[in-house]
Each structure stands twice: as C-alpha cells, then as structure tokens.
C-alpha cells in the first residue's frame, strides 16, 4: 500500500508538489519509487534554469529502468537536492521528505489548482 500524504498535490505521472508561498518542492511519489525499484542515479537540472509545466525536469534511473520526471509547474529552479545525487537511495527510503528533488519558484500559481488532491491521486494509483 503506497503512502499518499494528504497535504501534497499530485500529477498523473506520479510527481508530488508541496507548496510553500511562492515556491514548490517537487519529488516522486512512494508509488513511483516502488515501481522503479532501487534507484541508482538521478540527473538534476541546473539552478536558475527555467522550466515549463510538462517538460522533462529530472531523470531517475534504476538498474532496469529510466524514468523522466516532468515539471508539474512552470517556473524557475531555485534549488536542487544534491543529497540524492550522492545517495539516490534516499528517494526509495523517504520519497516525500529527504528524497525531494527540485525546488521551483512558481510563475503561474493557478497551475496548482489543476493538480490532483491526495484523495484523487489515491484513486488514480488504485486504477493504475
């Protein structure tokens, strides 16, 4: 049973977002890390890079798969979690906290409204 924290917003591609004022913390969900298996490598964007909602943001690799993480929101990358570059296993162990990936300064806060609630996401992965 995947963990789906209630205070986050979700995408169909299994990214989560935590809004804090004008910034959004982005990661992949417990469901996603479980599907990928042991994560071995993460390729993060560079700080200050502009990102468009739906574009490739991060690449996450496991031994048998490689998966693109798409930007859930448009904006500018203000911080990346370099801890996961050295220890990609953090994403497996703690996807919603220490395994976060990117912090984005959100340019269009209205985009948040189009994302799924925890309840909706739970239904989404239930049907996946």
């Amino acid at each position, binding site marked *: 049973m995947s963990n789906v924290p209630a205070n986050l917003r979700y995408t169909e591609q299994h990214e989560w977002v935590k809004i804090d004022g004008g910034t959004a913390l982005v990661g992949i969900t417990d469901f996603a890390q479980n599907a990928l298996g042991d994560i*071995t*490598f993460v*390729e993060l964007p560079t700080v200050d890079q502009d990102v468009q909602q739906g574009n490739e943001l991060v690449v996450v*690799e*496991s*031994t*048998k*798969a*490689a998966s*693109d993480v798409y930007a859930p929101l448009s904006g500018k990358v203000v911080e990346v979690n370099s801890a996961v570059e050295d220890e990609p296993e953090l994403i497996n162990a703690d996807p919603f906290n220490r395994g976060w990936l990117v912090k984005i300064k959100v340019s269009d806060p209205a985009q948040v409204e189009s994302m799924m609630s925890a309840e909706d996401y739970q239904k989404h992965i239930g049907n996946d």
Partner: protein
Amino acid sequence: MPFIANTEEQRLAMLDELGLTAEQLFDDIPAELRCAPLRVDPGLSEQEVRTRMAGLADRNVSDLISFLGAGYYDHFVPAAVNALVYRSEFYTAYTPYQPEISQGTLQAIYEYQSMICRLTDMDVANASMYDGGTALCEALTMAIRISGRKSLIIDESVSPIHRIMIQSYTDNLGIERIQTPPSAGCANRDRIIEQLNNQKTAAVIVQNPNFFGCLDDFSDLAEAAHAAGALLIVSCYPIALGMVKTPGAMNADIVTGEGQCLGLGLNFGGPYLGFMATRKKHVRKMPGRIAGRTVDRQGRDGFVLTLQAREQHIRREKAASNICTNQSLCALTALTYLSLLGKHGLAELAALIADKTEYACQKLTAIDGVKRKFPEKSIFNEFVIELPYAAGEAVGRLIESKMAAGFPLGRYYPELERCLLVAVTEKRTRHEIDRLADALEDLV
C-alpha cells in the same frame, strides 16, 4: 542433414504430438506470400566447401611485402592469442545477460576496460564498439549530448575514412561540421581556435599520430576547447601509446581509436575493434556496454553489465546510442595481446617500430627525387614522401614486383597527388625496406 539433429522419425513424432503436418507449421503465411523454391545450389560437404574456399583464398595475393597502413597495420600476433580467444566458452557465448554463467566474459571486459584506461590515461572505458570509425562517430554524438551544442570542428588530418563516416552518421542531424585543413602536416591551431565558438562548438576532433603519421601534443587545443565550453576528442593508435604522450595527459575528454592492431589481423576490413574512454564525470553519457565490479549475496566479487539505463533496451528512443552489443571477442583479443606484451613489451615494441620507421624514412628520402613531406614533424610508424610524379603510378608499378609501397594520398588529398604514405611495422625487415628503396630508386 548437416547441423540438424532430429531424425526423420523424431520429426514425425514431434509433428504428431503437435497434431500438425510440416506444412501446417507455416499456415499463418498466406499462400500468396509464399516464395518459389530458392535458386540456391544444393548443399555441399565440408570437404567440398573447404576446397572451394581455399581456392578463393588462393586468388588473393597475401604475400606482398607491404608498407600499406593508413590506419590498419600488419602486426605480429603471438600464437597464444588465438589459442585463448577461440576457446568455445568465449566465442560461442552471447552478451553476458546472465552474469552467474558469464563471469569469464564479464571479468575479461572489466580487464579490457582497465587496460584501455591504462593505455590512454583516462578514467573509464566502455566494453568496445564496432571499429575506430564508429567509435569516433559515437564520441561526437556523445559530445553533442554533453554540451547541448551542435557544431563540430574536425581537423582534416583525421583519417579521411573516418571523416566520411562522420558525414554519413551526422548528415540527417542538422549538425554543423567545420573541417580545418592542416598546416604543415599537423592540426592548424590558428584555424581551429578561430572557429571555436563558446555558444556553438560541441567538440574539436583530432588524431594522434594523424593520418600523415605526424605526432602532436594537443594540450593547447584541450585548453582552448575547454575555455570555449567544448570537448576535445582524440582518436589514437594504441600501439603508439607504448611510447607517445597519452590523450589523458593532454586533457582530452573523449578518446577513441582503432584496435585492429592489437592482435586482430587485417582481415580485409573486419571484424575490427573500436575503443572509447572518457572522464568519470561523463560516464553516464557514454554509449555502449559497460561491465562493473560488484558483489554477490555472499560478498564475493563478481562482474555485471552496469549503467544499463543509458542503453537502447531500457531507454529506447532516448538511449545514448542504438548499439546493442560490444565487439566482445575482438576486445578479448586485444586484452590477451596486451597481456602477452606486458608493460615493457609494449614499450619495446613501440620503440622498435619507431626505429625501423626512422630507418625507412632515411633510406627512402636518400633517393634522388624523393623528398620527405612535413620534415619538421616527429613521426612514429608512418610518414609521407613526395615523388617526382603521381604516387599512384609508382605504387601500381611496384605492385608488379610484389610490393605494396604505401597509400597514395591523392585519393583523399588531391593537392598531395605526388605523396605516398608509407607504414612500417615490426614485421618489416631491413632487407625488405632496402628492397623497397631499390625498387623506388629504379622507378624515380
């Protein structure tokens, strides 16, 4: 029937079990799509095939005294190389997908990767590629991925064969290729640096020794390329690395080369071996299979194919390359060859080749009317001489006396029509070199 084990009786028993006739096995191919019986002659015995193939081999002239090189060289191969490589456990296996029963191939690949790193002074190498040309093509697409840029600067003293391959590989990719003519037989610094663009240039591509046999130190080009945010790709001749400055010491970013000379034989063009090495920071952008060391459940060392998320079977259209396997048996050949030469053997071999080359160069340029081209450059195993008339003509005449005098450069460099590229390996004796000199003197 050769190579088919089942007897007629077994075949019928199996069909019976399936409840099918032999024809029904192919019922899913509609009748209108079936072909007429193939117009291929009936099968032959092994003895007949061997006789025919030996007859064809006899129609090749393989006992020429050859000074033909141009990137592919006639080196001596110790008998132990083939004795090991042709062990069927190596040559009848496939890509080591199941590591528990492929530790032989996997450890050999790891050792080969280590050997290439030690030769080139680089951090990591892949498990090998088809040949030096495809390795170079893969290196420049790798540089394009790393830099996110789409322009290449290629020195024209890089093998013209490889440059044609680069053109074929990149023609549909919207990539700019700037070719810079060499100056006095070496990469033209001024032209290359003038073309370097800190927005556009992905890589500068050079070769050592270059196609004319001239040696170079590209440290300055590495510095200039890096200052512009570009990579330096060096294609090199691995036997020369027994003595010449390494691409690693020049600060190259990607190193490739043709491994044919490492025990493979000339084989009329293949199979050959491409090697590729790079810096640790670029390893996840490197194409090709890679073996890595890890442990099993009991903590014992073992080897696996690793970093596979770069590859086509996982990443499909986003893969670093479409390459599926490596050139495993050829890499094993190179590994055994280098193991047998060893640290001092390789250095001595390189020194011997360089001495013989110097002798040949002195001897040929002592002929009246024969000049050394690019005389101020250092050479290793190959050099260019200029004749008083078209080099092709001289080569054509010398073939009649069973000598391949070298490669006439006019084929790729029209302005060098009178120039001949002469290669020397450890197999060429003083006597043979003298004979070439005598024959050439008679002609000139």
